[in-house]
């Protein structure tokens, strides 16, 4: 209910809208309704939008997850899931959208992230813009509801999708053998190195899986670490995207790390990395990917330990 208050939906009764408009407005058959976005701005929509441009991959995925993929008329160049999106015109990136291409597509709604500066420009050009910034598990649920409200999809449908996702995350957690519980994991998001802290989206998934993140919540979502910290923590499993994995084992002092020595490395492909880092409806798939790798790596080592006697 808190979420409903935050999104601030206020559906006006058609009659009341008519009354407020008085002589100026043409009476509309559909109910006008309002949505409050992540800027706190109220966006009024006369009717459920049918031509939608999404400029953030996780928002594109959310629209499609709600079964409304057919309403998309354009996406940013990084929206690559589901595969059907490849047929849509690409309108630049989330940070550098092609304003002209968006306007030319005559959308009645633009979904965009808060870090894009284009929102104001698009609004000034007369487009309806809803700004959404999913960062956490709770945000995924909230954004699902807000997108549903915006598109005129029953909120119950968003809640149903969420329950499905949430159950799948729990199932992924339960698929982990008891021996894998409490495995100490380091997830590197970037070779600087930046790690995924407990308060990040990735960290929340790790917590749900019941494994231990070596980066506590006090470090914030994506701390830039002293590499020595990872060596001292000596995690059981290291998770990293293929792009950032190159050269990791050659870092000074990292060869002796338990995870590297015993090859307990989860190196995720580019497509898998997209799933892992996007706070969107594929978070259950992300949880499955992580759980699958942890189970595989810890089982292999367990078996080796049993064969070789005490380690």
């Amino acid at each position: 209910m808190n979420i409903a208050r935050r999104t601030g939906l206020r559906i006006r009764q058609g009659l009341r809208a008519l009354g407020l408009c008085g002589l100026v407005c043409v009476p509309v058959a559909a109910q006008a309704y309002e949505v409050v976005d992540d800027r706190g701005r109220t966006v009024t929509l006369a009717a459920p939008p049918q031509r939608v441009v999404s400029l953030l991959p996780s928002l594109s995925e959310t629209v499609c997850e709600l079964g409304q993929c057919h309403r998309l008329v354009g996406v940013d160049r990084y929206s690559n899931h589901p595969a059907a999106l490849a047929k849509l015109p690409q309108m630049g990136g989330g940070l550098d959208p092609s304003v002209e291409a968006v306007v030319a597509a005559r959308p009645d709604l633009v979904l965009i992230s808060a870090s894009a500066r284009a929102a104001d420009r698009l609004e000034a050009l007369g487009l309806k813009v809803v700004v959404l910034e999913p960062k956490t598990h709770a945000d995924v649920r909230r954004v699902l509801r807000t997108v549903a409200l915006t598109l005129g999809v029953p909120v119950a449908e968003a809640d149903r999708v969420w329950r499905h996702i949430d159950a799948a995350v729990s199932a992924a957690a339960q698929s982990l053998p008891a021996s894998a519980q409490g495995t100490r994991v380091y997830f590197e998001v970037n070779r600087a190195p930046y790690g995924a802290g407990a308060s990040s989206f990735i960290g929340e998934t790790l917590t749900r899986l019941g494994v231990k993140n070596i980066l506590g919540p006090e470090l914030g979502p994506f701390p830039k670490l002293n590499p020595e910290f990872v060596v001292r923590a000596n995690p059981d499993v290291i998770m990293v995207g293929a792009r950032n994995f190159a050269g990791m084992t050659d870092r000074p002092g990292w060869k002796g790390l338990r995870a590297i020595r015993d090859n307990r490395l989860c190196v995720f492909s580019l497509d898998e990395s997209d799933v892992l880092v996007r706070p969107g409806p594929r978070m259950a798939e992300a949880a499955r990917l992580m759980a699958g790798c942890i189970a595989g790596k810890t089982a292999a080592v367990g078996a080796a330990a049993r064969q070789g006697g005490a380690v």
Partner: protein
Amino acid sequence: MATAAGRPDTGARRAMWLGMALVLAACGLALLGLAVGSTGVEPVSQVLSALGDAVVGPRGDAGADAAISAQIVWDIRAPRTLGAFLAGALLGLAGAVAQGLFRNPLADPFLLGSASGATLGVAAALSLLGVSPMATGWVVRAGLTGAAFVGAVLAVLLTLLLAKGVQHTLRLLLAGVVVGVVLGALSSLVTLLSPDILQAMQSFMLGSTGFVGWAAVGIMAGVWLPCLAVGLAFSRVLDGLSLGEATAASLGLPLGALRVALVAVLALATGTAVAQTGLIAFVGLAAPHLVRSAVKTTHARLLALSSLMGGVLLLLADTLARGVMAPQELPVGVLTAVLGGGYLLWLMHRRVG
């Protein structure tokens, strides 16, 4: 070193004192650097015992913890600390050479486009990694270090080509600036096309000594010593140039050949430092100014002292970067700018007052 005249030379004496102070500071900071890590500042005794373990192997009862502590001190902190000094020393030397060569107090090691060349090299390598399996093989072997070095050297060669050699100082400066801007724009383009590398690029551009190992220390030391030797040997041309191009020529110095040698020192020292640590701003610009504010002396001493000063500055910045927010790290480039720039501003303020 001292002038042939019998009376005491105050410049030379001050330079000697400054040199000794800088060597002492470097030693002190290096010891401190061994003790500062992801757990904050550790007692020196603990560090020394860890170092002992690293050399002779952990004593029987010490176990895994001691082995890890030994490894951290020996494999991570020691090369990192030495590497910070060496990278700073390379940049300080390059800065002093650049300012003398271009007779411009604003000159810095990155003036000939090496910084943007290195950035483009790293951006290209990062965006290729993981995208094309063909590229991965050799890019990984050469590594980002190789990409940065190749980029830096190619950029300097391009600058020299555009300037048609080193004879014309103004032309060389202009060519360096133009090459820098063009290559910088290309790096931005590459970054824009593969935004996954954005954070990695940012950390390269702010510089870090986090992954400097013994191999990198060896390379930097191997480049630093000959560069310093060449710089010192040819420093007379910088003394001559400080009196003006015509005067330098009238002194009978083989200006062309010496210039080529000094540009090579500049490019090699900068390229090596950038390849190992990323773009660490301001050390090369500030170090010669800090030395000049303390002592007026010949270019031979200025080069040596600037190199030491650069090393000390980066060592200090790196130790703080590790220690202030442990286990998180500040970008070391931010600290060099704050430390070096802050001190420089204070000096200027005092002089005006």
